[in-house]
């Protein structure tokens, strides 16, 4: 049973999509598991034959328990684990795994029992990283949303509450905000969008996300995870984008490598993500690996929010609506479109100064949107 996010402890097996003896290609959905984030299709990481089903339909299974055995194509006798990704301690005697390594393996859906110990005989972050790099196929469980799969909104609310209560309990938050004047950005967007058909236009969230992703390069202490008492900086910028579900609830799946995407590619990713949150399928990695989250209230909502960090992340950015505001220009009063952006940071990792630097950099980048 894979862990899809820090708050998942168990899932209920609702359907086997393959039968024992059936051939499985890499990426084939093997089982459907009901979680607080909806029904997730668990896919196989490797080709083979489904050798044995270990969990009956209807059973609630803790994260880490073996669901089934898949025998590799060329393995006659020794069955290989695939659909199952146990998080339990490795059975190998004498091999220790560090808590941080276990956490990373869990987040990545890597079977710690299959890891090779390092030179010191133990498994650390380096060994997990190596396994991640060597993995031929990223885990891609998929989820469908409320309308299609009857998502339990009460369970989702409980999951949100559990994560936020943990956040409030463990993370010493600080909040720093700035109001950014956005006339340059909006004029540029209007110009770009005027030449495009409606379906190809960019939302303002797109340059905003890109500016934030680039600004994080100057403040890496806001981008990463706090695990086992220390900050683990993330090299990539995977921004979790909070998407509301109609009827209630919220999911913040990641767009991967935002700093490396051009605006059109980012718009396409965002569009795809929102579509899949609402009516399609989410991938396990999207739920498990955001390095920072952005919550954008959107048009005609409210001016500002003080967001709560989603653990184990160390920062979250809240964007209020864009609205016309009185603005001082060359000593006189003008009316300009502006947005209040608030950063919540984790005092165990950074101070308000980091968030202030981040906001200043975002403001600078948005003054030259054509360069994003």
């Amino acid at each position, binding site marked *: 049973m894979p862990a899809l996010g820090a708050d998942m402890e168990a899932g209920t097996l609702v359907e086997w999509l393959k039968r024992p003896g059936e051939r499985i290609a890499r990426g084939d959905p093997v089982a459907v598991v009901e979680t607080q984030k909806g029904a997730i299709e668990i896919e196989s990481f490797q080709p083979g034959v489904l050798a044995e089903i270990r969990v009956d339909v209807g059973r609630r299974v803790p994260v880490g328990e073996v669901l089934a055995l898949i025998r590799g194509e060329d393995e006659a006798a020794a069955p290989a684990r695939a659909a199952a990704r146990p998080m339990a301690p490795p059975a190998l005697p004498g091999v220790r795994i560090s808590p941080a390594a276990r956490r990373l393996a869990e987040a990545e859906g890597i079977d710690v029992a299959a890891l090779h110990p390092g030179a010191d005989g133990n498994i650390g972050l380096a060994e997990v990283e190596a396994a991640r790099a060597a993995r031929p196929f990223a885990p891609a469980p998929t989820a469908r949303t409320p309308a299609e799969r009857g998502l339990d909104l009460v369970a989702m609310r409980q999951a949100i509450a559990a994560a936020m209560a943990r956040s409030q309990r463990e993370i010493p938050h600080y909040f720093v905000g700035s109001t950014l004047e956005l006339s340059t950005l909006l004029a540029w967007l209007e110009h770009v969008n005027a030449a495009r058909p409606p379906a190809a236009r960019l939302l303002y969230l797109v340059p905003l996300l890109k500016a934030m992703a680039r600004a994080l390069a100057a403040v890496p202490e806001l981008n990463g995870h706090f695990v086992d008492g220390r900050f683990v900086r993330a090299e990539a910028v995977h921004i979790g984008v909070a998407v509301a579900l*109609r009827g209630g609830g919220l999911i913040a799946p990641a767009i991967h490598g935002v700093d490396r995407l051009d605006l059109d590619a980012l718009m396409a990713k965002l569009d795809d993500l929102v579509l899949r949150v609402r009516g399609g399928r989410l991938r396990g990695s999207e739920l498990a690996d955001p390095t920072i989250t952005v919550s954008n209230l*959107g048009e*005609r909502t409210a001016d500002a929010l003080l967001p709560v960090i989603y653990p184990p992340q160390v920062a979250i950015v809240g964007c209020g609506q864009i609205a016309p505001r009185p603005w001082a220009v060359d000593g006189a009063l003008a009316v300009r479109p502006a947005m209040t952006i608030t950063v919540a940071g984790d005092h165990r990792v950074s101070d308000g100064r980091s968030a202030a630097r981040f906001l200043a950099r975002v403001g600078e980048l948005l003054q030259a949107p054509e360069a994003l």
Partner: protein
Amino acid sequence: MNARDPVELARAALLGVAPDLAGERIEPDTPFRDQFDFDSMDFMHFVAGLAKTTGLDIPERDYPRLQSLRDCARYLEEHGWRAA
């Protein structure tokens, strides 16, 4: 003149974005945003759908005039659509 009910055109574009609304009553004067938790992505798809079925090039500055079903019908009427 185009003989297609502008309200039906707008309703069809709305269902294109939110198929789960089929059969539900749509309040003609309440903005989609308030009625169905529409966000800017939903709205973009709605306008794109409307532009596709009508052939209209709907510029962004007209978006505020397309917030509710009645708004949309009025907008389409101004651009030549009438109920048959």
